[in-house]
């Protein structure tokens, strides 16, 4: 029996260029910290081997800072790290991996050749490193021909999808789902899929330990696998991520809808560790729209780690809204003109709708000043 920690898709050095600098820095640090958390986990669970199934780095040539930070944190542990290049950091001569090796401590092993390696007595890893960014060949095909001593535990490491999601028959590095059976593997550690996924009793995606996009909502996780010769492995998912990347789409008709959604969200996640991509739609009154937007910008945005809002709210000004701007007089004239443009559906409609909202906000502000 051997207990391994299976992880993948760290994507160290991912830029997050669209995010503000402070969020960017936090996310970058969180990815490095994930290595520390992994090391802690191995210590806590007495695990000697960590398998990293590809895409440790976000690109083929991360800067030295990224490489050195990663290596320094890996060197701090007592475990052995077994890495294969993935599609983002595929092996190529003189690239990243040559640099990486030069600086790596003795407990870090780059498996960039499809040759079996004995990591412990009777335990072999069969790596399927990604040699090219794109190849329609099955990188795990070679595992069948990799011979290991009789009775040895065979642990495959590969990086690639098991399903052609594009369904065009042109997925790259496609791995057959029954590879473990076909090549007599006791466990197949897969990378590429960023969420934890148990493919079959001997095959799993660990997912990324620290999520990095709104594409998937899973919490960051790793797999702790107990591989036993001649028996199915014990596969355990362990959540380890810090930040959650969430996507939500709220259809609102009034401020109360919004408040309800926020309550629901707050009840389900730790807001300060969440990055939220929010899509708003629905038709609301001017007053509600202004209130919702104010609440978003002055409330929710501050509660969350980061909020990205795709605001498609449609304003349907009510009579009260218009009256609030002014009941008569020039402001009323202006607001009713804008409402006409907004409801005409012409090219200026969206702009007029926003202008009306602004007018509303400004009129209220002026009104409240008046009242004082």
């Amino acid at each position, binding site marked *: 029996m051997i207990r391994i920690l299976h992880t993948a898709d760290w994507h160290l050095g991912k830029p997050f260029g669209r995010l503000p600098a402070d969020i960017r820095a936090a996310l970058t640090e969180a990815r490095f910290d994930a290595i520390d958390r992994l090391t802690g986990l191995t210590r806590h669970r007495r695990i000697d081997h960590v398998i990293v199934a590809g895409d440790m780095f976000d690109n083929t040539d991360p800067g030295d800072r990224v490489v050195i930070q990663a290596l320094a944190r890996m060197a701090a542990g007592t475990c052995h790290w077994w890495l294969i290049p993935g599609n983002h950091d595929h092996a190529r001569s003189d690239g990243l991996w040559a640099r990486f090796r030069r600086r790596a401590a003795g407990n870090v092993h780059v498996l960039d050749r499809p040759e079996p390696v004995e990591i412990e007595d009777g335990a072999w890893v069969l790596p399927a490193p990604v040699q090219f960014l794109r190849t329609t060949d099955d990188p795990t095909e070679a595992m069948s021909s990799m011979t290991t001593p009789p009775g040895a535990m065979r642990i495959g490491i590969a990086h690639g999808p098991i399903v052609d999601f594009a369904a065009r028959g042109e997925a790259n590095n496609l791995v057959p789902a029954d590879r473990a059976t076909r090549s007599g593997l006791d466990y197949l550690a897969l990378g590429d899929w960023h969420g934890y996924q148990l493919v079959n009793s001997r095959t799993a995606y660990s997912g990324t330990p620290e999520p990095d996009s709104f594409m998937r909502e899973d919490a960051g996780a790793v797999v702790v696998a107990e591989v036993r010769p001649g028996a199915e492995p014990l596969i355990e998912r362990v959540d380890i991520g810090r930040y959650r990347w969430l996507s939500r789409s709220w259809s609102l008709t009034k401020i109360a809808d919004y408040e309800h959604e926020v309550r629901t969200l707050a009840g389900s996640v730790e807001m300060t560790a969440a990055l939220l991509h929010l899509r708003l739609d629905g038709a609301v009154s001017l007053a509600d729209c202004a209130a919702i937007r104010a609440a978003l910008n002055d409330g929710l945005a501050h509660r969350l780690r980061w909020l990205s809002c795709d605001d498609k709210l449609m304003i349907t000004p009510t009579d009260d809204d218009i009256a609030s701007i002014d009941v008569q*007089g020039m402001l009323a004239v202006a607001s009713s003109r804008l409402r006409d443009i907004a409801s005409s559906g012409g090219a200026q409609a969206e702009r007029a709708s926003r202008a009306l909202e602004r007018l509303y906000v400004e009129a209220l502000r002026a009104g409240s000043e008046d*009242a004082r």
Partner: protein
Amino acid sequence: MKIREIEINNFRKFRQPKTISGFSDGLNIVVEPNETGKSTILEALRAALFIRHSAKTELTRSFCPTGDDVAPRVALTFEIDGGIWRLEKQFLRSAAAKLSGPSGRFESDAAEERLQEMFGFERGNNRGTDLETRGPLGLLWVEQTSALKIEAPSARVCDTVRSALEGEIGAILGGRRFEAVRAAVETAYADLRTVKSGRSTGRLQNAEARLAQAKAARASAEEQVQAYESSLTELEMARTRKRLIERDLADPEQKTRRQQLQSDLRLGEDAAIKLTAAQARHDETRAKLTSLEGQLSRIATARTVQATAGAVLAKFSERNEEAEVAHEAAVAIEAELRIALASARAARNKLDRSVRDARTALGVRTRAVAINGARTRLAELEGLEAELKTVEAEAPGALDADAIAELERLDRAVVAARAIASANAVAVNVQIHDETAIRIDGAPAGPGLRPLGGRTVIEIGRHATLTLLPSAADGVSAAAREGAAEDALATTLARHRVNSLADAVSRNELARRAADRVAGIRRQITTLCVAETTIGLDAGPAALKLLVSSLSKVPPPEEDIAASADFAALDAALSAAIDAEQETVGRHEVATEALRQSETETAERRRKIALAERDLETASAQLEQMTAGGVETLETKVLNLREELQRRRNTLGEANTAATTFEVAVIRSRLENMLRADEKARREREDLIATIAGLEATIQRLGPKGLPGVLANAVEEEQATAEGLQRLIEEADMLALLRNTLAKAADDASRTFLGPVTRRAAHYISRIVPGSDLTFDERLSLTSITRGGLTENTDNLSRGTQEQLAVLTRLAFADLLLDRGSPVSLILDDPLVYSDDARLDAMTDILTEASARVQVILLTCRERAFRHLDARRILL
């Protein structure tokens, strides 16, 4: 419409229920201390009349007294068209609206709708875009509460009546909120675009700059990544190339091929050497054979020559002696004739000389004779010339024919005149009787008859002188005429120096004879002086004279030396000698020809013989030499050589085939190519090693920079920046739209109301400024106030004037509504604070008058100021 009662509860300052009642139709003055809530009363009126009871807005929430959670409530009792109505509105909590009056009770929305109808603005019509169509009544009603709250004049700067009015109209139509909103929008817009040109500024400009930076950063990163990636690709290619070259260099197949070629080359070279040898042996044999065959052929030729020469010699040997004799004879004949010819020539030459001598002598003689003749002729000539001179000297000058003819005419005229004179003539017969001398015309006259002519004076002694006058029938006497003719004749004769006509004729005859004589002498001279070639004498006397004068020194020949010579004999002898010579020449020529022919034949014959003899000799010598070894041996040798040549030709053919099989040049070229290719590959490998090292260095340098990450980051940043910019542009566009809409609304309002309100206000203005006359421009703007005959610019209006204008504007509005059949309550909040007493009086008069038309409610904390007014006073 007239307000009767207002009840307020839970409304702003009024936490407790408050009822204000007792409003009269005319002027009402609501007196209240400061801070008791005048403004709140206005707000409550506004809430009751316009704000929908169900509204939950910031405004309605502001109705609630601070800190309380209660339901603000306003109730209003008013009279309209004689009917009393009660309106109740409760906001926020248990919001409700109730309206009851003569035409029934209405609740909630129905109440709101009814209310709108009553005040002249129906639902759906009240928010149209056009100010004019939506009911000014409602407008003022709705707005009056806040609009009629006159602000402290110092709050705005009004330079002119027009701007003051505009400001007040603006206040009525939107007031401070509009200005505040507009200012906020302008500020927000100015932070994005310049107001004047719409250029980017502030945040928008910054965002554009950031995008430009992001773009540049992305481009730079792209370039670096490109360079890095191409280095990697080049390195990969260089390594692959190097591997291929090394594989090629180590290729065992290539080695085998080279060895095969080298062995082929050796074989080829051997074959070539063999071929050369075979060729040489073949050529050698062929040369030998050719030589021997030549020898045989030469023997045959020599034999032929020998035979031919023998025949020639035989032919000539028979006739040779005879021919030689004939030739010698010809030589002798010619020699003989040559001698004869020489003697003939000598004879003729001798005769020639004799003749020449004789002729010379004859010539000398002839010349001497001629010279003598010349001398004789010269003597004759001299005689003739002397004679000629004489004749010419004696010959008279001849008259010409015209002169003779004139003389003859004149002579005939004399004769005719004489005849006439004769016919008329008187004759005197003189007879002398005594000794008295008779003289006629001076000349003594003898006796006899004497004709008289003309005037004749006859003197008879001293006795008488008779003057006889001719008859003068025609004026001139015949005698006179006769005399004239004679004179003419005499004159002419004198001119020609002759005495008479006869004399002239004879002189002419003499002259002609002399001329004939001269001509005759001249002919003689010409005949005498002919040319004489023998002595070089030309024709003419001059030549003769010249010749003779030159000869005069030579003495004349003494004797005739050649007179005896026999020229004829000599000539005959000479002729005979020539003939003899000619004959000899002819014969000699024949002999010479015969000799030449004979010599030609002899020479030819001798040459042929000599040739034949030499040929014979040579051929014999050759034959002797060539046939020394025996002809048969030669022939055998030739046969053997022919056989050998055939053998060697075969060998050569075989060698040739062998050489063709291994083409040395081709094999060698192939080998060279292989070696060259290897060399090139080796060099290329070295180059590649250098290239690879260079690229590796580049990659090691660039790799640690993390360029792909930098690029990915730059790309994402650029996108984010671009989106941020787009949002700002959208915001700017939105603000531009809002700005324009607000500006247009303000313009429209001003345009719609400024004119009518100004016209109405003018009436009042003239009253507060007595004696003033208002001037309006084309847009009905009040531009100046003429006061006491002086036009005062309306700049810098005093605060009091501004305030009064504000009140008057509102009054003008109220009048406007009254005119349209919708009288309203004019509510004024603490007006005329700044008016002096005179103006205050004027204003209160105006208000009092107005209260006869509309209900006026005046809220004030200065009771004293309005104490003099006859009005309903209500105390709060």
